[in-house]
Each structure stands twice: as structure tokens, then as C-alpha cells.
């Protein structure tokens, strides 16, 4: 296969449950379903890039063997949302019996939280009516967006963000197969930008690999439009010193010269601030300002002004705190 056209997250997606990185306990439970040949409806919840889809596909492969593609169907609820999809498409798949001697089919409904409550209500009955023929695996980021009657019908698995070592391990494995050299700094960078999201990590690695076989930290930050943690730490320190001009300078360097997206920058400042050993009173004030700016940007406010205003507010809070002491 022409390597430049393969997305690595597909190329290296684990085929078997046993190959999955992290989620050990969940994998163990899923394997015992395979061993016993039975399966309830499942609900996978958790953030992106931590193995929900991989687990569903691998589970289907192990359940059905060679006939897995005939008995497994993946639908993405956010592409094909609405009550009619559930009523027609899902029912169509669910009501026909399984092929190749399998006892049932598996329907994987990704991003099920994108379904309207109406569609979910319809889904709930379909699940029950066709339980003989078809098991449902629903996946979503937030289980609170799935209506109670469906949660009541599923075994719920909460996937946790992968820990840094798990991400690093997988990146090392892929780098080895691709013949890449990943420096320690680059690995730290990958883990930092991934935040437990394997998809982000692998995409960053692939992006950097296009530039060079020897991967360095700056390449990773460059390719992912992320500021280095040191730069963010510097910005936070400048804020705490109460130096608005200085903070503004760093902001301009990052957004105008380096082209960082303002909400990504807010995200990074947030992570740095939460883990910073500053006094809690200043910290909560800063987090509050960050949240406000994030919200306003999401509502379409102009980013230059909002970011500067946010910095000004943070600097002011730092000042006020210092004067109080």
C-alpha cells in the first residue's frame, strides 16, 4: 500500500482486544463476553481517542471471526441523526438475522449522544424488540446526554483518558515500525499535546514524520500549532508578576507570529494555571477569567480583544491579591 496515503490511526488500530493499550479492566470484561459467547447491550462513555471505537470493532472481530463484516455495522449518529434514521436504518439492520451461523449481529452507534431525545426514545424500544437478533454498542462522550431508559438497558463502561505512559508506549511501538527516531523531548511533547487522546498523539507523530525521520520537540509543537509548555509557564509567571505589557507581548508572539488558535491557547493556559503552585485565590480568579473568555469566543466574540481583556483581568487579579497581603 502506498504509505503516504494511509492514516496511521487506521493502520495501527489494534485488531484484537488484547492489543489495546490501556483500559485493561474493560478489555478483560469484553474478552470474557467473547469467551462466553454472550453479550448485553453496551454503552461506552469517555472522551475522544481513548479506544471506544477500537474496542467495539475488535470485539466484533473476535465475536464473529471471518464473518465480522457481515454482522457488524457502524453508524455515526452525528452524521445521520434524527428519528427516521433510528426508525429505518437501524431497524433495517437489526431485524434481519445474523449471517454465517452467528447468534446475533452487533450495531455500533458512535456518538450516540448526538441523537435527539426523540430519536433516543425510538432507539430504546428497537433495542429491546430486536435484542434477539442484534446487540447495540453505543458510544458517547458524556453519558448524561443519553436518556435514562437507554442507560437502564445497557451495561455501562466508562473509558478513562489514557495515562501518559500508555500513550508513550504506543507511540514508541509505531515509531519503531516506521523506523522513526523520536527524541525524549519529542516524546514529552507528544504526551503533552495528546492529554490522553491516542488519536492526537498518533496524528502528531505522523505529521512530524512527513517532515523528517528524526522527530524533535519543536517539530511536534509546530505541527500541532501548540505552544511549548515553557512558553505558557513564562506567560503565567508574567501575569503573576503583574506585567500586562509583557503578557501582551507573549500573547502576540504566540498568536500573530506562530499562528496559535486563541481557544487552544486558553486551553494551554488553563492547564498550566490549574497545576501551578500559585495561591488558590489568584488561581480561581484566573480560571474564572479564562472560562469567561472561552465562552465569549465560542459565542463569536473577536479573539484579539477578548484575549487581551482576559490577560488584563488576570493581571488585575494578581495585583489585587498582592496588595491584600
Amino acid at each position, binding site marked *: 500500500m502506498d504509505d503516504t496515503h494511509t492514516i496511521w490511526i487506521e493502520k495501527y488500530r489494534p485488531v484484537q482486544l488484547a492489543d489495546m493499550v490501556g483500559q485493561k479492566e474493560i478489555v478483560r470484561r469484553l474478552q470474557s463476553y467473547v469467551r462466553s459467547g454472550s453479550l448485553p447491550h453496551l454503552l461506552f462513555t469517555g472522551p475522544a481517542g481513548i479506544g471506544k471505537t477500537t474496542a467495539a470493532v475488535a470485539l466484533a472481530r473476535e465475536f464473529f471471526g471471518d464473518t465480522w463484516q457481515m454482522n457488524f455495522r457502524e453508524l455515526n449518529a452525528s452524521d445521520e441523526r434524527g428519528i427516521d434514521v433510528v426508525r429505518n436504518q437501524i431497524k433495517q439492520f437489526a431485524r434481519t438475522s445474523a449471517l454465517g451461523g452467528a447468534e446475533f449481529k452487533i450495531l455500533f452507534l458512535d456518538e450516540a449522544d448526538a441523537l435527539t431525545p426523540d430519536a433516543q426514545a425510538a432507539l430504546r424500544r428497537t433495542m429491546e424488540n430486536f435484542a434477539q437478533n442484534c446487540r447495540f454498542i453505543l458510544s458517547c462522550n458524556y453519558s448524561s446526554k443519553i436518556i435514562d431508559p437507554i442507560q437502564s438497558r445497557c*451495561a455501562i463502561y466508562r473509558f478513562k483518558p489514557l495515562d501518559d505512559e500508555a500513550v508513550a508506549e504506543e507511540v514508541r511501538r509505531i515509531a519503531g515500525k516506521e523506523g522513526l527516531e523520536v527524541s525524549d523531548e519529542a516524546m514529552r511533547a507528544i504526551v503533552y499535546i495528546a492529554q490522553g487522546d491516542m488519536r492526537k498523539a498518533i496524528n502528531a507523530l505522523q505529521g512530524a514524520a512527513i517532515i523528517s525521520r528524526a522527530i524533535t520537540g519543536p517539530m511536534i509543537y509546530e505541527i500541532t500549532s501548540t505552544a511549548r509548555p515553557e512558553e505558557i509557564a513564562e506567560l503565567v509567571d508574567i501575569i503573576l508578576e503583574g506585567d500586562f505589557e509583557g503578557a501582551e507581548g507573549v500573547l502576540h508572539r504566540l498568536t500573530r507570529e506562530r499562528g496559535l488558535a486563541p481557544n487552544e491557547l486558553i486551553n494551554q493556559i488553563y492547564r498550566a494555571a490549574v497545576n501551578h503552585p500559585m495561591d*488558590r485565590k489568584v488561581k480561581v480568579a484566573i*480560571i474564572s477569567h479564562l472560562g469567561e473568555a472561552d465562552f465569549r469566543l465560542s459565542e463569536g466574540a473577536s479573539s484579539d480583544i477578548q484575549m487581551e481583556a482576559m490577560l488584563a483581568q488576570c493581571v488585575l487579579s494578581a495585583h489585587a491579591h498582592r496588595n491584600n497581603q
Partner: protein
Amino acid sequence: MMDWAEKYRPQHLQDIVGNTTAVREMAEWARTWTRDAKPLILYGKPGIGKTTAAYALANDMQWEVVEMNASDQRTRAIIERIAGSSSTTASLTGARRKLIILDEADNLHGSADRGGARAIIDLINNSRQPILLIANDLYGIPKELKKLCEPIQFRALQARSIVPRLRHICAAEDIRCDDDAVLASIAEASGGDMRAAINMLCAAGIGSPVLTERDVATGQKDERSTIFDLISGIFRGKQDAGLMQLSREVSDTPDTVEQWIGANLRHIGDLRSRAEAYRWLARADEFVGLTYRRQYYTLWRYATALMLLGTASAAGGGGLKGRIAPPSRWQSMAGGRRQKMIRTSVLTKLSSRLHIPQTTLREDFLTPISLMVDGDPEYFVEHLDLDQEELNFFLHDRERAKSIITAMAKSKREMEKRSKTSTAAQEVEQDPVDAEEKEKPAAARENQATLFDGF
């Protein structure tokens, strides 16, 4: 292999766990069913036995079942074709009756179901067969429909009544479980939802012949920490990173955590500090609200950080004075939502009667109307078709509202009975005292300017 919840669904009313009153009322309804009997609405949370009870009832009575639900296109035509025929025609298989079960009766509002409520009402009016409606939320059922039916509430099950059922299933599935605490923790985690409990048991039990705490921990509640750890961490001065880590491990969403923190702010003795804590909790609450309103879940993290760190900062590691209380607001919160629905329903009725917009009614007219209702509750119950909760909305006196509604229902029943007996045997004389008593309030009303005259 069948779904366990399906496989172990009780077949007879007597096997149903919990909800004994509701089940008894259903059996009584079925036993004495005539064409004049009102259909029942079984309502309550998911997974507590409504559908099961409906099927078990049919089984016990040897009635055939015709079931419909929201995933069928509940348009008028279909209801008429399927249920209409079964309701008026005699049963083919020779079973005595057909029980028509309309599931998800609170889910008729979708545009695809236009006309559904109307069709069900027609069905109820024309049916010669018993009808059961099933719903999660009584107030989600259109008023006109609810009026025609008798509601029966199903309540969440006690954990201790779930455990024996789980033990029974373990035995049937050859799963060894020596430790009852394991089953108890499943029951506890299910929140009174039997189906969820059985699903959890299934998830934990499949493929492992011996059930241990470890299986349960991974099957459903895979968090390593509880909300209690988090709350105690906040007040005992745990470090920021530790708190954030805890909050990730606890599976509760920020809005729930917020309620817990709010319920425990009394642990901060100093008033100024407590106000400080409230300030950040309120700020966090803003972000929770924005998250839901805008469906922008990134904002959740600010809510979490602010409520945890803000409260921890205000508490200053002062520790806990006494035990950690669960949010008492939970009950009143559910109550608040209910209250809102009752208010909406009352205002809708008033608004259509008086031709006044609901907002105007709420702002300018509620007090005078309440006073008038207080003066002659029976009249308003009659004319606005108020139920007990709605009457209480005006009276703010639960006892009185209840006794008025009960008395009115009773006298109505007696009147119906009397009109039946008097047509059957016209000779029978009416009780003179009774007749006189009934006349009085009617006469009193004549001299009274009523609300509806006024407008």
C-alpha cells in the same frame, strides 16, 4: 443468548418485586374491568417494572396483548388500524380480551407523532378492550389524555429488595457469589432500577463463574473514588492537583458535584469564608448552566475547577464538622421541576379560558385568582378541571386540596351511581337530606360573581 433482564422478566404479578400497592391496584382494576373502566397510566422511572407488570397482568388474566410504542410511527392512521381493530373487534384466538398496551405515552410530542394523542383519545373513547398506558413522566402526557385515565405510580425499588432477585439469577446462571456485599453494591449502584441492576450483574457475571467485588467494580462503577472522597478532600485541604485528579475519577458530572458541595458548605464556620465559597460555587454554576444551554462541554472544566478550588480556598483546610450530607436539594429539585410543570399546566388552562397571555397572568393575576380559588375551590376545580396538585398550587395547603378533590370525586361517583340506579329503578326515591345538601353550594354560587363572568 437472551438479555438477562428479558430472560428473568417475571411472568406473574405475584412475582414482581416491590410496588405492591401499584400491582394490587392493577389486579383489582383488571378483575373488575368493564367497558366503563378508565384506562390505567403506569408511570415511574425506567427499569422498575411497569412494562413487566403490564405483561404479567395480561398473562394472569389470560388476555392477549397488543403493544404499541414510540418506535412505531404513531400516526393516527396506524393507531386506528392496529389498535382500533383490536379494540372493537372480538379476539380471534378465543382469549377473553385483548389488553392494549401503549408504551411511552409521555413521548407523543415528536413531530413524527402528530395526531398521536388525538388518536389515542379516540381509541380510549371507542375501545371495548382494556387499555394500559405506560410513561416515565406523568406530566409529559397530554392533559386531555391524562384526564381520561387513572394514574398508578411505580416507585424506585429499595436496594434490599433487589438483592434477593440478583441472588436468584446468580443461582439460575450458575454463578457463585459468596459475598452478599457484592450484590448489595450492585443493587445500590442501580439507583432502584432493577433492569440496570440485572444488566450490571450480567456484565460482571458473564464469563466469570465466581463473582467478586473486582468484577463489579469494572462492570459498572469503575471509578476508584467516590463523591465522599472528593468532598472530604475539598474541606480537608487536599492539594489542587490531587483534587482535580479525584474529580476525574469520580463519575459524577459537575452539576451533581456542585449540589454536593453546596449541601456541605455549612462545614465552613466563618461567615466571610462561607460567602467566598458561595461566590465561587455560584460562578461555577454559571459555567454549568452555560455548558448545557450552549451544548459547549469545554466549559465544564471551568465549572469543575472553580467549584473545587474556590471552595477549597475558602475552606482553608478547616476540615469537616460532622458528616458529609447528601444534597437535600435533590428531592426539592425534582419537586421544583414538577412545580414548574404544574404551574405551566395551570397557566395554560387559565390563559385559554381568560384569553390573557400566560406572562400577564403570572405577573398580575395570580394573587387575585388564588384568593378567588380559596373562596370557592369546588367551583374552580369543576371549571378548570384541576387535579389535586394544581389546586394546591393556589391553596398552598396540601391537606385541604386533597380533601376537596377526594370529596368531589366521591360525590361525583355517588351521583353517577345514583343516576344509574335511578334509570334502572325509577321508583326509588332520592334521599331528601342528601339532595338538599347538594343544592346549597349551587345556590351560593349563583349570587357570586365568578371569574369567568368577569372576563
